[in-house]
């Protein structure tokens, strides 16, 4: 299944068929999730209405981590098996992951000010997520820093794989060290500590974010593949100007000599 889809032509066909449904589903789930989270969900017993920032902040944080993991796995596949789609997949995911990480940092800051009393502290959780943001930016910069695109892809893939070390540090920073950030509420031993009427809209928003990512990712991958095809066609034409049919030649051009 995977190896069949890894053929770019096959991927273009399948993704083109799936994309409209994916985008529509993402829009519906996000609309439902937003109303549920921002209007219908109850306020928190100690944070009041400010808790609604959680419904954006937490799914964005989950996506920041999962998109990075996806990017690292795709990069490892690209490094080891040289699959034609793996680099495209990793590079298409990076800016979306960076955007989720930025949303996570920005909403966290806006939430920290009223609740903790500060916009930012250098505790282990906040710092490691900032490092994740820089890893995304560094990856994007590195991939585009080479004239030879394949060398850029190779260097970027290595950085993405090495950076995966940061993911367990982010996840467990709140357990390993004292931090201002509270420990995990959902993915923890002993079950979630979020009441069900707040957990369900949170999960709906997480699903909406995941669908949104999937749709954006496919669009970016398809664009990258089309771009690559265009470039190849253009190179092909430049390399073989004489193979053009004579009637396509500009007026006044010398007829091809055989």
């Amino acid at each position, binding site marked *: 299944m995977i190896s069949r889809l890894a053929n770019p032509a096959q991927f273009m066909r399948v993704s083109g068929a799936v994309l409209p449904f994916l985008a529509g589903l993402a829009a519906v789930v996000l609309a439902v999730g937003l109303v549920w989270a921002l209007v219908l969900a*109850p*306020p*928190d*017993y*100690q*944070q009041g209405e400010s*808790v609604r920032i*959680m419904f954006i902040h937490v799914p964005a944080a989950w996506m920041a981590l999962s998109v990075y993991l996806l990017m690292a796995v795709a990069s*490892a596949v690209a*490094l*080891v*098996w040289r699959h034609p789609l793996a680099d495209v997949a990793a590079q298409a995911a990076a800016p979306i992951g960076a955007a989720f990480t930025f949303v996570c940092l920005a909403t966290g800051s806006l939430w920290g000010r*009223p*609740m*903790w*009393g*500060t916009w930012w*502290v*250098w*505790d*282990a959780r906040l710092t490691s997520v900032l490092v994740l943001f820089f890893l995304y930016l560094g990856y994007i910069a590195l991939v585009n820093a080479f004239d030879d695109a394949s060398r850029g892809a190779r260097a970027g893939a290595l950085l993405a*794989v*090495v950076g*995966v*070390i940061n993911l367990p*540090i982010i996840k467990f920073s709140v357990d*390993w*060290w*004292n*931090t*201002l950030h*509270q*420990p*995990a*509420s959902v993915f*923890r031993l*002993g079950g979630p*500590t*979020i*009441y069900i*009427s*707040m957990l369900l809209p949170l999960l709906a928003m997480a699903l909406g974010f995941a669908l949104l990512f999937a749709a954006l990712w496919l669009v970016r991958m398809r664009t990258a593949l089309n771009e690559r095809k265009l470039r190849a066609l253009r190179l092909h034409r430049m390399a073989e100007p004489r193979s053009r049919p004579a009637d396509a030649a500009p007026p006044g051009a010398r007829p091809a000599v055989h």
Partner: protein
Amino acid sequence: MTRKRRRLILLGGGMTGLAAATAMVLTAFSGNLVFFYGPSELLAKGIGPGRLVRIGGLVEQHSVAHLDGGREVRFRVTDGKTDLPVVYDGVLPDLFREGQGVVAEGKLNGSGVFVASSVLAKHDEKYMPPDVAAALKKAGRWQEGGKPPP
């Protein structure tokens, strides 16, 4: 096939080495990676007066007293074993109250009182609607600042 296998082994080996190195570095520096010390840790580490540190813990019940027209506040921070008197002159975050987690930055003075220059509130991982919290309190299953109810 063999080249793919060689690349896989190289990558796997490299990542294993990197993970081991990172684990060792983080363990070695774990004392510097903590954001704050609990009162017991502060005493155990023998951090004396005059050094800028952050302490964290729960605000002890019935320990908050406002002095000097309400701006200066005294309270005790506890980790369940040791507690430490804190004095702070400044704006407190909204979540500050007895039983709430706090992180205070400041220095110990000569008489063992922690003079805070900033106080941040630390909230726990529990989220619930107000009526559920009220019901838990009414049923006596509420532990302020303690572990979440089973």
